[in-house]
């Protein structure tokens, strides 16, 4: 300012004034524009993220509803096709009793009806066990998994084993059921798609987390493939796994060991001990 005063050149002074004013004005406008455009971009990005999250949630919800429907259909089919005819036959035998009064025939038909009712009881027990394995409720996850693996080993096609390193404290009942369902689905997938010769399950505890890891020597999937399949319209089982893991507030990762031989699936579950 003193320089301007000293020079006394009115032309240069008015130049300074005009350019200075224009410069300040442009600076202010640029600043405002930057803020507005940046905020618009951030909001757009946030909305996109929100939309993606909503789509994912909807997909998971759809998958869980579909799964429930499939399960209901299976139970309905089991009851209708197996239990229904058995009970109807038992009813026929008992009707026979009303018609034939001879004790020998009556005894024979009562015996047959008893056998059919026994079969029905066994059938209903099987349906109930497939819905909620009693071993899981009474003896915990370790026993339930060992039970499942024993059944798998019985087929002689695949060798399944489980080792729980730190299972002194059981998880909460709901958590155990969710983990069991996830492991069951993973094992089913391995048997169905991977052509594996063995499956080995290990359990560990580190800090406040329980880790379940399944090793197998078949053709598995990696994390990227899991995420891709999860976003596809198919893959109901994988979506169920994802939604159950979400309920557990845990995480799941698919990878391969350093020798590129064994595929690994690791589930991390925050520990909530049973009361």
């Amino acid at each position: 300012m003193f320089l301007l005063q000293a020079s006394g050149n009115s032309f240069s002074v008015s130049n300074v004034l005009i350019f200075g004013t224009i410069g300040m004005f442009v600076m202010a406008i640029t600043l405002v524009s930057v803020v507005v455009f940046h905020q618009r971009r951030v909001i757009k990005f946030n909305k996109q993220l929100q939309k993606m999250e909503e789509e994912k949630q909807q997909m998971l919800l759809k998958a869980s509803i579909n799964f429930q429907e499939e399960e209901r259909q299976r139970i309905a089919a089991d009851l209708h096709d197996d239990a229904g005819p058995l009970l109807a036959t038992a009813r026929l035998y008992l009707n026979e009793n009303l018609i034939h009064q001879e004790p020998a025939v009556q005894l024979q038909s009562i015996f047959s009806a008893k056998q059919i009712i026994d079969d029905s009881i066994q059938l209903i027990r099987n349906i109930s066990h497939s819905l909620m394995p009693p071993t899981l409720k009474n003896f915990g996850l370790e026993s339930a998994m060992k039970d499942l693996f024993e059944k798998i080993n019985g087929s002689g096609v695949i060798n399944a084993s489980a080792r729980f390193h730190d299972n002194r404290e059981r998880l909460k009942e709901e958590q155990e059921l969710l983990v069991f369902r996830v492991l069951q689905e993973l094992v089913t997938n391995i048997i169905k798609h991977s052509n594996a010769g063995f499956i080995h399950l290990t359990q560990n505890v580190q800090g406040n987390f329980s880790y379940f890891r399944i090793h197998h020597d078949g053709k598995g999937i990696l994390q990227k493939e899991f995420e891709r399949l999860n976003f596809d319209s198919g893959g109901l089982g994988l979506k169920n796994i994802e939604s159950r893991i979400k309920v557990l507030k845990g995480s799941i990762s698919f990878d391969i060991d350093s020798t590129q031989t064994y595929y690994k699936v690791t589930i991390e579950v925050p520990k909530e001990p049973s009361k």
Partner: protein
Amino acid sequence: MNGFDSIASGVECIFIILLCIYYLIIQLKGINNLFVYSTSNFWIIITFLIYLAGTFFLYIMAENMIQNENFQIQYTIINSAFNILKNILLSIAMLMKPTPTEENKQKNEDWDDFLSHKLNN
């Protein structure tokens, strides 16, 4: 005009411009799903920012150059232009619809319920 204090005006301009920039930075950092230009606060702030940025050089030169006729003409033109711009921007700010807060929304809904209850009985 003769008693114009350029230093005080300059300091005031810088201070208010800095406050405006601070407000804009806060808006940039904040997580808000509301567009910044849909609030009247934003228009008031940019009014101050643009007006003071535009007249900053004018004010700091005014004390020494006020006797210069050429400067007086420029002063009138620039000051009037930015005054008009300031008034336009302030009018926009005044015309902005206030965005209801959650609390006010609830109050309005309660009031609506109360009115409909009164009308029904």
